[in-house]
């Protein structure tokens, strides 16, 4: 047939199909697949770009170079030539004076480019109205934290001396986007302009200064700069990455990315099952049409072209409608989340639109082509002999193609080989085991049939009789349930993990330097102001100077000699018990409590960096003397739990003779900030660290992530619903005819209804079992390999899911089969004949 004639005929046939409603579920499945893909795509694309923007505020640039010596000017020249923006900071600890008062502070000098990412927040006076600042202080001015004002007894407008420079305090600094997470090394901040630094004469050869150059620009330029920079790094210089500086944020981002990848994949796969189901059903319904068209003179290729055309138009329509649905869904989501999201959400990307359209073609063609190829092979003789069905395609070809397609899609989606292999292997294993299990269960059910109550026996027998079809349908339901369970369980686990990370009332202020005699009055003060007082921890300041008698600087490698932990005093504590979320990786926790030997448990990563292992002897310097302790254990610390955490924990009594202060933490909401003034008056020697700004920043990011995860679940459930519909629909014609026939033969409605119920419910029950089994398998694998969560079997699922699945599939099946009962059998039989 000439192409022009095909192009005239195919759309007409398609329109007639559409009118009949035959294509609705196929299109619905396609729209769900593409809709969830593009909605998730747009949403995560925009959110993650926005999260990344916010996250990069945390380190201060797209790329940050840190080191302890001024950097080669060639580096900045190279960055400038690539069109990158540049900012430079230098940080050092120094003493500032005002009148007779002295204070050890953390000075940060910034140039005009600072801050590159995010903004500073300041107030004009102590605890005044916050405002944002796009630049640091100009020359001649200093911006300081409230603690500086308290400690020096000065206010805004007074001056302080940094080295030989006199600077006027003009702002109170409340937030630095790139402050970092290093709670205890904090001396209060004094920020000044870089041009005042030289005049201060404070930096001399040998001064310990931490320099940071920050760079920002288009991703390609940043990457090419990174590529140029990495090989030129000197010892002691390193490129900062987000993960090192803010592990809790980068971890949440990573897991959220993996989760959304997985969830959208599951939504896609479910929709693909629906598409494959509907496609096969569609094709089987068209054997007669194909035969007739062949009879009327269409060639095999004409048939293929007609149906391919229909698929392409469907894919196009599904692509457009899916994109529209996806766009609407993500706009709705963003609007609903308005308050929670930062104001700087980037616009829609084009990539999800394109990939959505592409996906429509791939999924529809990939999953229905085998069925359509069978249509091509229908013999025209079928018009005379209805039993002539086309030969089935090679199973190996069909399954091979499907597995290939699914694996490819997964890989494209997650970019994660472990995840992809995990799911494919997990599913294959589940299919294999489930297939065997179902066969076994069928056998068992068949043997038990005589003992099954008479009312439901016919239904169960029906289920057994359609064994091949029933196995396929049960597996499809089982996989659907499995996929949905995986997504639900992971979501629950991830969200509770994140919420545990930062509970609503997590302490957002830390207090240091409470003296021994102040601990009683401190408790009284907290009670008087109705603040929940967390326990105080003892702290002894000490510098690690020797490992096994050798100076620590000789013990570590050259690169680690600048490690901050050996170049400053550490906060040391003692405790009878290991902190709740620390875990021993080596040794034992206080193996012998009867001796008065000093024992220490060391944080595992620090131990690795400094080459410390259990049994080593560490020597510390405190005040005016050296003292030693033996390493008895190594442990991991969750630095992101917003509680006081310690590199070194000693056994009780080990530091009784050393000068001790106490640290604590408390929660204060922004309306209560003025309490801090009373606090500083009552306890003039304490240091209060205000972490609320940083905490809020982290909370916002985690909140976004949780919402993204929640909303994606919605799509997965929708996809699951479509699969169920499509699977039931595929067997409906046969059921209709059978039901009508049985009714004609005298079966009552009640009997038929019970039959339908017991058939669908037994299918649901089996599918529920398969689903739970599969989800446990896949989750055990994913938790260990990908999400680094602890796996525990979900007992509730074993108890709840199979009955629930029986109920739901029972309802869905009976509801879909209601036509069997609602219409006169003769009508159904006549339509079947037509």
């Amino acid at each position, binding site marked *: 047939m000439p192409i022009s*004639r095909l192009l*005239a005929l195919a759309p007409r046939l398609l329109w007639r199909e559409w009118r009949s409603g035959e294509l609705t579920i196929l299109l619905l499945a396609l729209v769900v697949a593409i809709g969830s893909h593009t909605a998730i795509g747009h949403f995560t694309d925009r959110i993650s770009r926005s999260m990344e923007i916010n996250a990069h505020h945390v380190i201060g640039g797209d790329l940050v170079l840190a080191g302890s010596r001024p950097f080669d000017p060639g580096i900045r020249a190279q960055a400038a030539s690539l069109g990158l923006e540049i900012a430079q900071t230098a940080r050092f600890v120094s003493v500032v004076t005002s009148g007779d008062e002295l204070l050890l502070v953390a000075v940060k000098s910034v140039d005009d480019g600072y801050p590159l990412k995010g903004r500073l927040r300041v107030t004009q006076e102590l605890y005044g109205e916050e405002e944002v600042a796009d630049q640091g202080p100009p020359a001649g001015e200093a911006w300081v934290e409230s603690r500086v004002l308290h400690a020096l007894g000065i206010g805004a407008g007074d001056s302080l001396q940094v080295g030989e420079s006199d600077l006027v305090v003009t702002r109170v600094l409340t937030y630095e986007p790139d402050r970092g997470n290093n709670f205890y090394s904090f001396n209060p901040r004094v920020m000044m302009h870089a041009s005042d630094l030289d005049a201060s004469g404070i930096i001399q050869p040998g001064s310990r200064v931490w320099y940071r150059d920050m760079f920002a620009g288009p991703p390609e330029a940043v990457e090419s700069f990174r590529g140029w920079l990495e090989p030129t790094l000197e010892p002691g210089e390193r490129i900062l990455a987000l993960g090192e500086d803010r592990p809790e944020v980068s971890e949440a981002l990573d897991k959220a990315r993996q989760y959304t990848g997985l969830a959208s994949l599951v939504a896609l796969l479910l929709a693909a099952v629906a598409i494959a189901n509907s496609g096969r059903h569609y094709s089987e319904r068209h054997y007669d049409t194909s035969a007739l068209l062949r009879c009327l*003179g269409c060639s095999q290729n004409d048939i293929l072209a007609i149906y391919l055309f229909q698929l392409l138009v469907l894919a196009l329509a599904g692509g457009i409608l899916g994109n529209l649905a996806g766009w609407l869904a993500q706009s709705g989501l963003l609007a609903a989340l308005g308050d929670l999201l930062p104001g700087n959400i980037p616009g829609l990307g084009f990539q999800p639109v394109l990939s959505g359209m592409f996906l429509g073609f791939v999924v529809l063609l990939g999953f229905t082509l085998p069925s359509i190829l069978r249509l091509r092979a229908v013999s*025209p003789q079928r*018009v005379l002999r209805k039993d002539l069905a086309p030969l089935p395609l090679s199973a190996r070809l069909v399954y091979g193609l499907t597995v290939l397609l699914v694996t490819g899609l997964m890989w494209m989606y997650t970019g994660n080989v472990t995840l992809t292999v995990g799911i494919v292997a997990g599913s294959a294993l589940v299919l294999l085991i489930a297939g065997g299990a179902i066969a076994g269960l069928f056998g068992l059910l068949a043997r038990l049939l005589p003992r099954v109550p008479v009312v439901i026996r016919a239904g169960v027998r029906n289920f057994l009789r359609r064994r091949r079809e029933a196995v396929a349908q049960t597996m499809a339901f089982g996989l659907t349930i499995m996929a949905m369970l995986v997504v639900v369980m992971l979501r629950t686990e991830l969200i509770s993990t994140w919420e545990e990370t930062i509970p609503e009332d997590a302490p957002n202020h830390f207090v240091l330097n409470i003296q021994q005699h102040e601990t009683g009055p401190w408790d009284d003060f907290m009670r008087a102001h109705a603040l929940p007082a967390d326990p105080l921890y003892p702290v002894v300041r000490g510098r690690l100077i020797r490992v096994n008698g050798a100076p620590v600087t000789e013990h570590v490698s050259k690169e680690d000699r600048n490690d901050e932990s050996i170049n400053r005093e550490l906060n040391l504590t003692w405790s009878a018990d290991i902190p709740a979320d620390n875990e021993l990786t080596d040794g034992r926790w206080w193996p012998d409590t009867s001796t008065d030997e000093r024992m220490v448990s060391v944080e595992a990563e620090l131990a690795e960096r400094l080459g410390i292992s259990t049994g080593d002897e560490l020597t510390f310097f405190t005040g005016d003397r050296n003292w030693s302790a033996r390493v008895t254990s190594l442990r991991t610390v969750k630095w992101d739990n917003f509680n006081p955490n310690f590199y070194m924990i000693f056994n009780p009594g080990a530091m009784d003779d050393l000068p001790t202060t106490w640290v604590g933490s408390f929660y204060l909401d922004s309306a209560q900030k003025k309490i801090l003034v009373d606090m500083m008056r009552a306890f003039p020697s304490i240091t209060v660290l205000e972490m609320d700004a940083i905490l809020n920043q982290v909370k916002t990011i985690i909140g976004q992530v949780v919402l993204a995860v929640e909303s994606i679940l919605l799509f997965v459930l929708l996809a699951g619903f479509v699969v169920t519909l499509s699977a039931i629909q595929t067997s409906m014609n046969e059921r209709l005819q059978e039901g009508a026939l049985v009714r004609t033969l005298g079966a009552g409605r009640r009997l038929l209804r019970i039959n339908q119920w017991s058939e669908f419910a037994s299918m649901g029950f089996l599918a529920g079992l398969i689903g739970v089994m599969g989800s446990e398998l896949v989750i055990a694998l994913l938790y260990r390999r990908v999400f680094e969560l602890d796996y525990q079997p979900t007992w509730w699922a074993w108890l709840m899911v199979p009955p629930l699945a029986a109920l739901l599939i029972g309802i869905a099946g009976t509801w879909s089969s209601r036509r069997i009962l609602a219409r006169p059998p003769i009508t159904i039989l006549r339509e079947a004949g037509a």
Partner: protein
Amino acid sequence: MKDTLLPIQADSISKQVPVAAGTLQILRDIDLAVKPAETLAVVGASGSGKSTLLGLLAGLDSPSSGRIRLAGHDITAMDEDQRAAVRAAHVGFVFQSFQLLPNLTALENTGLPLEILGAADARERAADILDRVGLAERTGHYPRQLSGGEQQRVALARAFVTRPDILFADEPTGNLDSENGRRIADLLFSLNAEHGTTLVLVTHDGRLAGRCGRRVNMAAGQLFDH
């Protein structure tokens, strides 16, 4: 008469199919020639092979041996797609089970062969012939909304709408009651006379066969002149 002018000419055709126990001989050594505008009835019991013969003559299947010419074309030398082209140009069909497409209205079912041929006036011609078979009022109805007799009338309209040279009818009244069967037969023969179509009709209904100009019997895969 020369071969090429005969609408249908079959020379010693046989058909075997492989079965579990060896091969099953469905047709053996059949010769048949049908003249232009001739009406031929093939009668026989169920399973005698008459539908298989019809399928072979119409080019829906190939014989195991022998040669068939359809509308002047040696269809045994053709592949399936070439035979399809011959069918589109010269052949119409009427089936026992009507074979109407359920998602198409009466008008669309009737016009389908014209659409396949690319006729511009498919709708008008389909409407005309539906009027001719007495279904002018039912053009927008779907098969499920029509009675059996009405469905077969749509099928007849579809068969004649392309003015085929040859019409193959397989038990056209087999699914109908006697009254409807008689009406369909009347319509079939009067349309056939109007269009001067060559008709090959397979039936086990003696009365229907009796209305054909010639009649052959089929038994155990062989043809016997009546």
